[in-house]
């Protein structure tokens, strides 16, 4: 079967499905009709799509943590704690990294070792190993909408299991859960596999069950220029919509400059809506803003500063939800107390800013226009490379370096572009690789970086990007030379 951006037929999907459900013994526990009956009984307050609609219509920004541990009971305790003590609005189940690579045998080791050690030896919840039975126990034990959050290039079995278990949202996409999360998975393969995940949601939708899908916005979370992440988000949104997804949340990871971050969210919504309209998709669109995804300060008070800044930006941008970091971010996976503390700091900030939006200004307008113009250059070329087919175009665009994600591990990513901050901390393109920007856009990016270089008394170079990567962890946004700190 040739890759194309076309809704999978009944036969294509169900033939593949037989194979998917045989990937691990728990697959046998998934029954589509029974799952649909189960999903129809999910009360409104536990439905992801409903809660997001409510938030969007009422101008509220919701807070959602990340969280997952190896054992079911411990995982339930953790989620309940984040619900009751942390006052989370939406719950996650972060899936462990072995599951993300479909290494379920290693998950079994992790589960057994965790039982013996009395602490989680896995960095998330191995949902596939527990199957529908274990995942439903989690769903039934909590009182908020539940979403799988992971980083799985082939999430077909995982998606089958979590949706059949009453988890009403799934994060990921054929680009965003491949390029930043894998080394040697062809883009063509992950796009196909996520077409399956999206089609599954589309099939439930056709049975009257509205599940939410959320492409992963921040990608590598490391100085990704907004136009590149917005281009990927719009592509993944369109691919999902083709498979019948109707409730979609597009994401963006905080870069750190307020004007740029607000502009990125606004540009994303406006431009995505234009593309959905242009291609005839009827999609209910919401947004997610990720608090700073790069290196964090070790000092917990300083970390709360970073968390609160992200929360303020999310509120002022009018994002539908914000993904929360914790004061333990610099050292790894947080305790439940630290996780709850991050949510509380976030919600306090969101509540104080409720109803406020960053007002229009010349600077904001210019930034929105720049991001849209850059994004359009990229998307036009992707469509051109695919002769109008977005799936084919995406594969070719990665081959050609037209889509290129900074600092990504995938060998299918060109890795030619280099980003760096301008003098105000906004992320710009330092090296363009094969990104098809107009001369005007290239010159403007360059000019902004030259201004910083002049201020810092050094040439524009890769060292700027390296310094920027460590800057937030050291307490500042822009990585200045040592003698200027």
């Amino acid at each position, binding site marked *: 079967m040739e890759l194309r951006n076309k809704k999978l037929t009944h036969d294509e999907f169900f033939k593949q499905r037989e194979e998917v459900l045989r990937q691990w013994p728990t697959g046998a526990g998934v029954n589509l009709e029974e799952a649909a009956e189960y999903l129809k009984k999910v009360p409104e307050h536990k439905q992801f799509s409903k809660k997001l609609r409510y938030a969007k219509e009422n101008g509220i920004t919701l807070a959602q943590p990340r969280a997952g541990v190896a054992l079911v009971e411990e995982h339930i305790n953790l989620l309940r704690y984040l619900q009751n003590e942390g006052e989370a609005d939406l719950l996650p189940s972060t899936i462990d990294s072995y599951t993300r690579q479909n290494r379920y045998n290693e998950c079994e080791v992790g589960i057994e070792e965790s039982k013996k050690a009395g602490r989680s030896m896995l960095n998330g919840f191995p949902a596939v190993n527990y199957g529908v039975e274990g995942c439903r126990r989690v769903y039934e034990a909590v009182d908020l909408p539940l979403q799988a959050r992971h980083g799985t290039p082939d999430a077909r079995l995982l998606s089958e299991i979590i949706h059949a278990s009453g988890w009403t949202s799934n994060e990921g996409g054929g680009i965003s859960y491949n390029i930043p999360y894998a080394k040697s998975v062809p883009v063509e393969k992950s796009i196909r596999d996520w077409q399956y995940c999206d089609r599954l949601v589309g099939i439930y939708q056709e049975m009257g069950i509205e599940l939410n899908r959320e492409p992963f916005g921040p990608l590598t979370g490391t100085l990704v220029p907004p136009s590149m992440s917005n281009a990927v988000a719009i592509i993944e949104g369109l691919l999902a919509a083709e498979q019948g997804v109707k409730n979609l949340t597009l994401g963006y990871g905080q870069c750190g400059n307020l004007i740029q971050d607000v502009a990125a969210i606004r540009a994303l919504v406006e431009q995505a809506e234009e593309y959905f309209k242009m291609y005839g998709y009827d999609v209910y669109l919401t947004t997610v803003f990720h608090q700073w995804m790069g290196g964090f300060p070790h000092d917990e008070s300083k970390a709360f500063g970073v968390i609160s800044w992200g929360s303020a930006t999310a509120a002022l941008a009018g994002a539908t939800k914000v993904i929360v970091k914790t004061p333990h971010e610099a050292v790894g*996976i947080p305790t439940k107390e630290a996780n709850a503390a991050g949510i509380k700091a976030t919600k306090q900030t969101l509540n104080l800013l409720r109803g406020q939006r960053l007002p229009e200004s010349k600077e904001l307008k210019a930034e929105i226009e720049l991001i849209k113009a850059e994004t359009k250059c990229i998307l036009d070329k992707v469509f051109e490379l695919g002769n109008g087919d977005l799936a084919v175009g995406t594969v070719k665009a990665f081959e050609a370096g037209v889509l290129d994600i900074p600092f990504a591990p995938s060998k299918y990513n060109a890795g030619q572009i280099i980003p760096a901050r301008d003098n105000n901390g906004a992320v710009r393109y330092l090296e363009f690789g094969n990104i098809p920007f107009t001369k005007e856009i290239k010159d403007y990016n360059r000019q902004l970086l030259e201004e910083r270089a002049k201020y810092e008394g050094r040439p524009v170079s890769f060292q700027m990007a390296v310094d920027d990567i460590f800057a937030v962890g050291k307490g500042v946004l822009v990585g200045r030379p040592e003698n200027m700190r």
Partner: protein
Amino acid sequence: MQNGKTVVIGVIGADCHAVGNKIIEHALKEEGFNVVNIGVLSPQEDFINAAIETNADAILVSSLYGHGEIDCRGFREKCNEAGLKDIILYVGGNLVVGKQDWKEVEKRFLDMGFNRAYPPGTDIKLSIKDLKKDLGIEE
């Protein structure tokens, strides 16, 4: 200027954190090392095979995602079996799940046979200084 020493670097297990890995490569090259970067998502065998093929002087293992403890078990024994008897082994990153006492975590990894272990947030320059000392390179 090359210092004549070869170092294998990579991120072990099912871990895909690529940013630090690229920066470590950059920093080691600046200090004159011949760097063999096997990248993210690398099993123990890939580190060992790369070290044998390139006659490496040291292996630097990174782990950022918390599974380091499971992934690193038996690494020293595997090196010994493969004939890499005295190869220098470092490990660093967010090695375990959660904020644990570093002294205990360090001991666990030294007991596994690593020559040195580094806590989260260590500047790579510190590790390179240690590496030069351990390899007998004059500063």
